């Protein structure tokens, strides 16, 4: 009970409307790490905000406004806790280490959960894909979930139709464990909790949300949830992706961050963007999830039209750059702003199938294989 009294403070801070997660987390680090303070003590030592925490006048005003919501959030917290939900703050040993390692300061300040929290500490994979996935993708999902469950790996999924749902149901069927990452507030998930009641009470399912507990589903929240799914897993399996939408954006983002992403190699006449993702650096896997080396993308691909989406992507920018010139990673980073070190970039470039290297003045330079038809399309 003792640490429960911190919960309204966490809720209040985590949903500070004008602040982004990173800004909130920086303050959290200052409070709980640098100053070894409880949030309660912090909120009630306003006189130290300016000096000790170097907060600006605007920030202080925001915090004062937030502070006045504490009694309301006490009511919210009571309701949450009495209904069996729990709040796991970022400094808690129960907080997913994988999530924290992957997102660092962008990791959600608090997690709202129901079920077996231990699941968050287990080795985990995510299976992602379209809502209207083909049977073959659903079958692939089933294969992966089965394998993961047999290996005592947790399956993370997003509770959407199609692949998400299949991943969850298969993990349950094979007596595995699952994390459901909600695209909504956890208190609006009554029907799902009813449906997966047995699995939740048996400790096989953890329901997790990063949003305000009463937020209802929205497309925006569904998109915002995707990075959480990716970050909760050590490996990400992609069953089926189109050239836009949540899965696509998530994978591109994941690749950019250097995550291990395993994409099902599609059959010849499948109409999806799996091959493009493989081409962009995702690892190809077969129907059973086994890695495929040296995949020949060239002939399998129909001319993809990714002009629209590609430019937004930083790695795509690099590829375009490397079509015209030969550069070292350091030189690339001077031209394109990327959230990675030169070593990470080098690793990333090596993982892309159509990038070639040449050694000049003792440094490895990268360029794009010009004969690739894909790249003509990009041009």
């Amino acid at each position, binding site marked *: 009970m003792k640490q429960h009294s911190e*919960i309204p403070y966490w809720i209040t801070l985590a949903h500070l409307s004008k602040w982004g997660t990173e800004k909130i987390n920086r303050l959290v680090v200052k409070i709980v790490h640098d100053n070894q303070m409880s949030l309660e003590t912090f909120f009630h030592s306003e006189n130290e905000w300016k000096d000790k925490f170097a907060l600006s006048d605007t920030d202080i005003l925001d915090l004062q406004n937030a502070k006045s919501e504490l009694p309301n*959030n006490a*009511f919210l917290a*009571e309701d949450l806790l009495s209904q069996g939900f729990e709040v796991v703050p970022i400094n808690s040993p129960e907080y997913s280490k994988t999530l924290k390692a992957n997102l660092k300061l962008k990791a959600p300040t608090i997690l709202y959960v129901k079920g077996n929290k231990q699941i968050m500490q287990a080795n985990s994979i995510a299976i992602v894909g379209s809502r209207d996935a083909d049977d073959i993708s659903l079958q692939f999902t089933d294969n992966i979930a089965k394998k993961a469950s047999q290996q005592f790996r947790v399956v993370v999924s997003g509770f959407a139709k199609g692949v998400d749902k299949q991943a969850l149901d298969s993990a349950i069927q094979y007596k595995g464990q699952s994390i459901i990452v909600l695209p909504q507030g956890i208190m609006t998930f009554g029907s799902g909790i009813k449906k997966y*009641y047995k699995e939740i009470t048996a*400790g096989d399912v953890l329901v997790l949300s990063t949003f305000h507990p009463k937020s209802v589903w929205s497309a925006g929240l569904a998109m915002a949830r995707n990075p959480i799914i990716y970050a909760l897993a050590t490996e990400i399996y992609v069953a089926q992706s189109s050239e836009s939408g949540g899965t696509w954006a998530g994978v591109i983002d994941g690749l950019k961050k250097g995550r291990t992403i395993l994409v099902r190699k599609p059959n010849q006449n499948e109409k999806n963007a799996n091959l493009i993702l493989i081409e962009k650096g995702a690892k190809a896997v077969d129907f059973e999830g086994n890695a495929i080396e040296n995949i020949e993308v060239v002939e399998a691909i129909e001319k993809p039209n990714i002009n629209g989406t590609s430019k937004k992507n930083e790695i795509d920018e690099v590829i375009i750059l490397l079509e015209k010139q030969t550069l070292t990673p350091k030189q690339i980073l001077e031209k394109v702003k990327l959230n990675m070190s030169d070593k990470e970039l080098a690793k990333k470039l090596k993982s892309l199938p159509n990038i070639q290297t040449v050694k000049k003045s003792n440094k490895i330079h990268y360029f794009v294989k010009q004969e690739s038809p894909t790249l003509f399309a990009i041009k």
Partner: protein
Amino acid sequence: MTRQQAEQKLKSTFGFNEFHDNQWTVIDKILQGQRVLLIEKTGFGKSLCYQFPATQFEGVTIIFSPLIALMRDQVQKMQDLGIAANFISSQHTEEENNQTINDALNGKLKLLYIHPARMENVKWLETVRDKNFKIAMVVVDEAHCISTWGHDFIPSYRKIVNLVNLLPLNFPVLATTATATKRVEEDIKAQIGKNIISIRGNLLRENLKLYVITVQSEDEKMIWLAQNLEKIQGTGVVYTGTRVSTEIYAKWFEYLKIKSVHYNSGIDTETKKDIEQGLMSNEYKCVVSTNALGMGIDKSDIRFVVHTQIPVSPIHYYQEIGRAGRDGKPSHIILFYNPNDDKTLPLSFIEGGRPEIKKYQRVIDAVKSERLGLHGIIKATNLKQTQVNVILADLIAQGIVIEAIDRNSKKYEFKFGSPALDTKSFEELRDAKLKEFDEMLNYLTISTCRMKFLCDFLGDNLHKDCGVCDNCRQKNIQVSVTEDWRNKLADFRETYFPILEVENKTTNLVNGVAASYYGISNVGQALHRSKYENGGDFPDWLLRLTLKAFYRHFGKEKFDVVLYVPPTESGDLVKNFAEKIAKSLNFTFSNALKKSRTTQSQKIFQTGLLKKDNLKDAFILENPNQIIGKTVLLIDDIYDSGATIKEIGKYLSKLGAVKVAPLVIAKTVGGDL
């Protein structure tokens, strides 16, 4: 704010010149955002300790109180003073409650009174967490209800404790109670926490004249009251131990033309409200009640409180007698004690307060396999609702079961990773209660000041005697029973027949009558002999008694047809009995009512819900058209939960019967749902 400034505001807002010293001590701390537990006797002016700060704070003060009548009175007083106050209760319509909640949200209220159970209401919870809802302070009235060591633990207070623990530092919280032992005080402080300060006044009530009357039988209690009740000035309350005895005592007073009424938790809300209002306006000499009455009654001039049964502890007793003489004027407090008989009931409350451990396991298993509502658990476990309620409250308190809210209905969930059931705390609690009961027994036999004994028990150090109790004045009351009174009581017993309350809006059932209570007179034995010991037909004296009950209740009313409840196992007993009734009353007898399927004996079901299921659509009437437009007298031997009568009444009403009236030999004591 200084005391002087505060008292100026007090004068202009409340019309009082000054605070008592203790009041100001509390108010000063509250204004500084502290947490206070205030233990003061009735009449101290505890409510001013939050009402005044509430008028000074920005935002709404939320007062949790279990007493609807008290909330109503307080709100009226505030409104009369021009202070914006209101209360939310089950006695308002949903629209009215929603309006009140919205008023609070929009800053139109200073004080909002609310029942702790409202913490489960979706609309309330949704509004109160809105950041525009400015909450100034939280008050926990009757704070002893949060402690299981107290005399009146209310499970919904658990949520209040949790809430208070979540409220921020420097947020004013006031908990108040008139009755808390040291142990309860410490428990409340531990639960509410965050540097709470307790302030305790003295608990001596100088105007209460305490008496203990030792008797040898229930008859002596009834006769003494008959002889003396009218001699005691004013209006009062007679507390009995059971629901049935509320009815019997009230009927006895009625027989003696003493204006009285019975009150217990089995009575519908509407009637309860009427009785409470009647008590307020001195319509009765006395209300005969179980301990269901009282918490909510803010009547300052209750002149006497009689207990026909000993309470389970001195604190229960202090609390219940505390309702008398709030105006400070002398009031009589009488406790009857029959050393031969009176320990059984309180001991059974203590021992039976908790169901057996294996029943806990049944509930845990049921909830583990499925997410269930209360009715679902009752059905899955075949346990009485009262027991399920106790078990659930314990399991929730121990964190094993969660009470989730699913579209305004409650669902119980098993909590993953929860600890095993802790039964040690149950035993500790039971032992503590037995010790308290021993103290209650001591109270009966002491020869020293009774008020001092009670105050000492409550942790108050009273250094003087009250000077007004029977021991202080050395005036012990003796009962004298005359032959005349014995005859009167016998006559009452033979002419008093329990009512069967089965009327409802959806059927043509009317209330009927039973010849007796099962288990109170020799009627039960006679029935048992015939039913289970091959004693043959029900004896003729039962027939005469039942006919007497009929005439008493229905007068000369004629019925078109006499039907009887087809039996599950005891042969033709009821059929033969019904036939004799029909013959004696000269009504048409029919055996057209049959069972359409085999049912199980109702006795094996512990709960009304399963009893109801057992009988659903189980009856069929041959030649159903014959019943259209007819009035029916429906005969049975024993009336328990009433489920059988209600099912048949529903069926016959559907077929077209215009009236269905039950007549039975005995009504059992108790029954669930």
